[in-house]
């Protein structure tokens, strides 16, 4: 395929992915908006007032970056895992497989579809948070960079999950039993300074902690971890997951017999 044709194929996949999650907005965009509003109201306002300050900010301000990041992580992941698995399930993935679209374009199209949903939901949650608190933006470039890299990384994770999934249960196992605990224990609601040395060390093994803190640093200017280390780690994860996802696609794992 010529470069112009490859671009059209990529654009087609991306537009189709965006069309999918906007068409089913009551399932994709509305739930995180409602859930996060409840978080803001209950944890931020009702309970947060009694907790007091954290990292030099009100509890509400402290948890907002984490909650935005939590929305981005879960939505970018689940968009790709459910979309690609649905395509496998109803065999519409064959439309792409019979076409000359290169596998790396298929992967990129699905991943950026997930990124689009992650960022869109992140934007909605950010707007909603402004009804509850004031957000100062410390470092715009870092904030955007971290949220984009995180969305890419978890979209890739969702893709690998969908490749291996054989049933809809398999699509929900990772988010429920791995992603959610990692996110809740990834410093969304607290600073790891509150933990004992042992649990601080354990927390440092959680990749979500780095993303949440890097994002929080971009917005509030406070972090529990080294930002550069966080960026390097996310970048390495992206490279490894992209390579692995592409390898699975080239092998036809789960999609070719």
């Amino acid at each position: 395929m010529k470069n112009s044709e490859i671009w059209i194929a990529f654009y087609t996949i991306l537009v189709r992915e965006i069309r999918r999650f906007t068409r089913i907005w009551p399932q994709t965009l509305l739930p995180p908006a409602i859930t996060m509003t409840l978080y803001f109201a209950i944890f931020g306002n009702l309970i947060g007032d009694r907790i007091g300050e954290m990292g030099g900010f009100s509890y509400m301000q402290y948890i907002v970056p984490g909650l935005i990041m939590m929305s981005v992580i879960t939505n970018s992941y689940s968009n790709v895992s459910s979309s690609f698995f649905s395509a496998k399930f109803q065999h519409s993935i064959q439309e792409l497989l019979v076409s000359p679209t290169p596998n790396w374009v298929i992967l990129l199209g699905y991943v950026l579809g997930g990124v689009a949903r992650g960022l869109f939901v992140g934007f909605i949650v950010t707007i909603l948070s402004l009804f509850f608190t004031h957000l100062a933006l410390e470092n715009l470039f870092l904030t955007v960079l971290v949220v984009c890299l995180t969305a890419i990384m978890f979209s890739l994770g969702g893709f690998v999950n969908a490749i291996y999934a054989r049933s809809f249960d398999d699509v929900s196992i990772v988010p429920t039993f791995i992603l959610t605990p990692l996110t809740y224990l990834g410093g969304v609601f607290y600073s790891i300074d509150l933990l004992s040395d042992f649990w601080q060390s354990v927390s440092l093994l959680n990749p979500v902690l780095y993303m949440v803190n890097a994002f929080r640093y971009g917005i509030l200017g406070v972090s529990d971890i080294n930002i550069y280390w966080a960026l390097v780690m996310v970048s390495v994860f992206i490279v490894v997951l992209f390579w692995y996802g592409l390898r699975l696609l080239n092998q036809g794992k789960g999609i070719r017999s």
Partner: protein
Amino acid sequence: MTYAIEISDLKKRYESGFEALKGVNLTVEKGDFFALLGPNGAGKSTTIGILCSLVNKSSGKVAIFGEDIDKNFAKAKQYLGVVPQEFNFNVFETVFNVVVTQAGFYGIDKETAAKRAEKYLKELDLWDKKDVQSRMLSGGMKRRLMIARALIHEPEVLILDEPTAGVDIELRRSMWEFIKGLNENGTTIILTTHYLEEAEQLCRNIAIINAGEIVENTSVKALLKTLNQETFILDLDQALPLDWSIEGFNVVLNNDGSSLEVEVVKGQSINRIFSALDQANVNVVSMRNKSNRLEELFVKLIKG
């Protein structure tokens, strides 16, 4: 000579150990109307799956318009349009979007895609359904939608896997007229079908596959010439005695003697049967083949 499809020593063993293809050799000429026949599990779908990249081959060579799929699969895929047996489009997309999105996967710009979508959806009587979600279509419409989708990049070869399964007679005929038109305009057609009379009427060349091997690959005419016996059923205006017979023919009467089944060997004249019936003062009111000629051959070849 460059063939539309050239398959040599194609083998496929699934992870379960099942050997679906045991060294298939097959060529399809450009512009041909080709039938690939075989019983369920013979290897038809596996062969087609390998051609269009849905199945990984174990070994062997496949070339589409001279392009080796191991060396330049992207180019080879450009030549192929596939209409699978099962519906495989996104059922929540509109008819128009299903077709235009497929064009995008082939790198066709939006404007060209929209024009072609209109052309093929109109030709296949789906234009008035263009904004309908594809899940709302009837079975026949869904099948026509898959044909329109397969044609959107105007392929040189169109593969149709059981395209008329579950389609009513009228629609089936109109689909065949459409596909015949494509073939007359130069598109190579490869089809698998269980309706053998369709293969007999439409196809020029034929391959019969059984248990992963090609057991016959020739022209339909040449194949039919090998048929050395046909069975006719004659409906009579009055009953014959059940022990009625005629020398040189194997004759079977139905329970009340009003219908006669007679086997005629190639070269044998059936005039003698009419003469014998005339002498018995019995008239023939209708006459037909007991089964499709190709079907008889097919069964014979498969049984080995």
